[in-house]
């Protein structure tokens, strides 16, 4: 026993010294769970409330206004705006500007409380199954109306009418997994060269900083694109999740996503001092990709600062695109803001990496 434990104390001392010499790594490792618990404990609220709703009020009577106020009072629905036509309401749904559209017919006030209750048409976005569930709840168990059947709410679930969870999860999961892979592809690239000493040899050469950054990203972007297309196909094969819109468009719009994620990895590589730190920082991006991106709970439930933070992750924007095209059959114009955000992120991250990476040491 004594022999088996020989040297134990010396090893402990040595390990403690290592920790004292490089406290950053340890502090980081211990801080990650604390930080993430605080962030995500707040962020994740599975009790979905305040679902964004638009109203097309064709009646504009006292009765219709009261009905709208009652819907708002349920707290499940949040009346964001009023639109003049049903067409515009449908477009808002397709563009993910709203999850629910309540269409009040012109005879609402006349028929309210009569034997033939007014028919209210409700359009629901089924691509987010949780949100759809909450909205259905609010509308089918109507709030304190004068009579139990005063209003006949006819629900029409657009997109994913069967309300299959996988139609909701798979197009998001693909995005989350792809960000994890792509970020880790590049996050080690510069630190590894720093540790091997080859970076110094590059720095004494006339190689351009931007050339170095883009050269690091380019080969991986092709690999990541191929994988992304393959994973989408796999989702279709295994889980029968059909892509309603154009697969070509989805693949094309994956380019800015993949570039943004690779640029994020590269940025990590310019910040990290060694490979262990690069690993930690990559892990740090994992949880937000899952919890803040809208993959699980809609982003609207996030408190303000976290909502802004989630904008910094490429996956947040690509999930919007992916669900819009794959589930709602959206076109390019419908997802333009998300595409713009991805391009902006890519450019900013590459510029930031280039600025951070100086061709000098010390």
């Amino acid at each position, binding site marked *: 026993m004594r022999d088996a434990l020989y040297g134990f104390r010396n090893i402990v001392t040595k390990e403690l010294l290592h920790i004292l010499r490089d406290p950053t790594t340890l502090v980081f490792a211990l801080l990650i769970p604390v930080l993430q618990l605080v962030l995500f404990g707040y962020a994740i609220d599975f009790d979905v409330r305040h679902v964004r709703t638009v109203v097309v009020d064709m009646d504009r009577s006292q009765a219709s206004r009261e009905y709208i106020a009652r819907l708002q009072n349920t707290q499940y629905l949040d009346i964001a705006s009023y639109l003049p036509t049903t067409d515009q309401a449908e477009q808002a749904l397709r563009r993910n500007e709203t999850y629910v559209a309540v269409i009040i017919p012109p005879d609402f006030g006349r028929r309210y409380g009569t034997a033939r209750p007014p028919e209210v048409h409700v359009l629901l976005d089924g691509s987010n199954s949780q949100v759809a569930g909450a909205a259905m709840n609010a509308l089918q168990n109507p709030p304190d109306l004068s009579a139990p059947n005063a209003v006949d709410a006819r629900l029409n679930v657009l997109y994913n009418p069967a309300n299959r969870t996988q139609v909701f999860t798979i197009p998001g999961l693909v995005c989350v997994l792809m960000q994890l892979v792509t970020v880790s592809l590049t996050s080690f690239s510069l630190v590894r060269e720093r540790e*091997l*000493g*080859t970076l110094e040899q*590059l720095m*004494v050469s*006339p190689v351009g900083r931007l050339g170095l950054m883009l050269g690091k990203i380019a080969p991986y972007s092709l690999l990541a694109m191929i994988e992304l297309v393959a994973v989408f196909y796999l989702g279709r094969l295994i889980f029968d999740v059909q892509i309603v819109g154009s697969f070509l468009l989805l693949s094309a719009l994956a380019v800015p996503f993949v570039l943004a994620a690779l640029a994020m990895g590269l940025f990590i590589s310019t910040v990290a001092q060694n490979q262990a730190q690069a690993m930690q920082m990559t892990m740090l991006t994992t949880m937000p990709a899952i919890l803040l991106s809208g993959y699980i709970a809609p982003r609207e439930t996030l408190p303000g600062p976290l909502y802004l933070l989630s904008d910094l992750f490429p996956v947040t924007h690509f999930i919007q695109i992916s669900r819009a095209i794959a589930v709602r059959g959206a076109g390019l114009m419908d997802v333009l803001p998300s595409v713009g955000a991805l391009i902006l992120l890519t450019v900013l991250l590459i510029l930031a990496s280039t600025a951070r990476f100086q061709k*000098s040491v*010390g």
Partner: protein
Amino acid sequence: MNAIEMNELTRRFGDFTAVDALTLTVPKGTIFGFLGPNGSGKTTCIRMLCGLLQPTAGTARVNGHDIVRDAEAVKRSIGYMNQAFSLYRDLTVDENLSFFGGIYGLQGEHLRRRKEEVIALVGIENYRRRRSGQLSGGWKQRLALAAALIHEPDLVFLDEPTAGIDPVARRELWDLLFDLAGAGKTLFVTTHYMDEAERCNEIAYIYLSRLMVQGTPNTLKALPEVSPAGTRRIAVATAQPAQALVLLKRQPFALDATLVEAEIHLLLPEKTEEGAVPAALREGGIADAAIRPITPSLEDVFVTLTRRLANQ
């Protein structure tokens, strides 16, 4: 024009001055030995000259380019070989040379021709398809030299190029360096090996971040601090050099005593009697001492100068 001109070149890290007001000139076509103990500021100085590190004060020109304003022009005009092997270990010899040629702007036929030239120069033909990580230490350094030369720089910085390689490989690498100097290249070399320092045309010795002395090996050996008037230097060879050193250091006539390659180099007043040294040794039980007069080696020069400064 000089290959390198440093003027009061200084670099501080916080309170620590790594390079202190260095003023040095390196003429073209020389093998310039940049010597000094570990931590004396040699690598920091080279990094500044290569444009990797900004000086805190002072200026320097490398191949006529200012190292701060024209750092990129400096980089194009120099070769750099690090003490640690810093090529890609997972690439072959050929692929490494193609890559480094490429980032210096060589392409097509020009790149192919330069690759053949440097491969022939360092004699690495037989290994060109081998991964560089699998080469032995000596071949790694030859490859690193080939990569540093591929873009035909006039000036090459070699930071301890022979550290950790065997004596034969070391000799062969120096033969290559002589060939290069013969072809008109300027070589700026750091080393801890005194035999390598002896081969340099000119030497600068750095101690505690400052330039201590500069000159040809012969001028340095003739410095009055090293060989004061009225003294002479002898070598004492014995089977027990360590004991002999302890004995001799205690003698009143020993001005300086150092062990150099199993011999004791002893500095004594000129008028010391011939028999004094053997007598002192015999008294301590050492009878086999052979004594001959010597001129100081470079090691004597640096040990003497360093001690003088350390004692001040």
